[in-house]
């Protein structure tokens, strides 16, 4: 028993350390049904934005996106259109840029401001400077979408994934995954397809 204890202790350390090492991988983060923690991130207008700020919101379409990824660019207009369509229904878009500007200068705060101005974003475009929100959500790529619905005092993750089935050409889209889910979520139902996958650019994490 005396010999076993140190062995067990080192085993525990090993298991724990491997767990810590594994933390940033894909399957960490939110699943549909999880409560989403609020955040406080700097918007391109310099003000801090939280989910709690908008008392009228029935939920949010949170999208991790950026200036530089070709897929994010391909979906930019579609994200603008989502806000136009769903903000009046109580689900505005909140865009979050998680990329490390030291790795991608095109995703600096100044470049974000420029992009938001040029494209007249009618929604917040927030910088996740510490990348903590992206880690917490489990975002892996841009664009990566999370629909949150207000349930009492909480926001619950109700859809994760793709916008639609054709990134290259919006005109050739056959299945609008997000809009299908939104139709149900706006009506207060659960989304029948609540989790989809999409291709995107890896989030440019800070070099640790």
């Amino acid at each position: 028993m005396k010999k076993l204890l140190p062995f067990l202790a080192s085993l525990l350390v090993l298991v724990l350390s491997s767990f810590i090492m594994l933390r940033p991988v894909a399957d960490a983060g939110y699943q549909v049904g999880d409560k989403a923690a609020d955040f406080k991130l700097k918007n391109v207008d310099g003000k801090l934005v939280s989910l709690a700020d908008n008392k009228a919101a029935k939920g949010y379409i949170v999208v991790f996106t950026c200036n530089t990824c070709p897929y994010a660019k391909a979906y930019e207009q579609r994200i603008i259109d989502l806000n136009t369509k769903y903000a009046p229904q109580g689900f505005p878009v909140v865009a979050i840029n998680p990329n490390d500007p030291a790795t991608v200068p095109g995703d600096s705060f100044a470049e974000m401001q420029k992009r938001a101005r040029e494209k007249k974003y009618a929604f917040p475009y927030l910088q996740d400077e510490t990348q903590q929100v992206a880690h917490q959500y489990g975002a892996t790529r841009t664009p990566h979408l999370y629909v949150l619905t207000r349930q009492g005092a909480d926001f619950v993750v109700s859809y994760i994934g793709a916008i639609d089935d054709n990134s290259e050409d919006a005109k050739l889209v056959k299945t609008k995954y997000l809009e299908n889910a939104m139709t149900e979520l706006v009506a207060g139902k659960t989304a029948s397809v609540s989790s989809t996958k999409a291709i995107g650019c890896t989030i440019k994490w800070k070099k640790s």
Partner: protein
Amino acid sequence: MNKLKFIALLAGLLLTATAHAQQVQVIKLPELQKRLSRPTDTTYVVNFWATWCGPCVKELPHFDKLTTTYKNQKVKVLLVSMDYASQLDKKVMPFVAKNALKSEVMLLNETDPNLYLAKIDPKWTGSLPFTLLLNNARHKRQTFEQEFTAEELQKQLQAFMK
């Protein structure tokens, strides 16, 4: 005369060899699945990349180099481009030529990642680069949704082949 013929033949051979190296096969998902399910004792190193993906472009030479390094071993490198098929001539072919890639390059011509990603590997969340190590005869499979340095890649492959 004979010498001339020989030179012509050599030139011809060289040309076909170059042309061969620069081919990019455009495939659909079932072809890729078939390719990845062969019951052979060959270790497949399958790297999913795109010309627009910075980290992919950076690590691609490490993968291509394996084709030379492991020439005499049962290792096969497949570089699967996730570029749009419409970009084949404009982006992918010039990239393959410019980098003189020696490995087999294919382009996956599918539009809906929600349908094909999980069929390639359920663990793939959809970011690039994505790498799959595979040996069907030994029922081994490992995935990496990350960028590799040359050393890391060598290390992972060696560990996988043990």
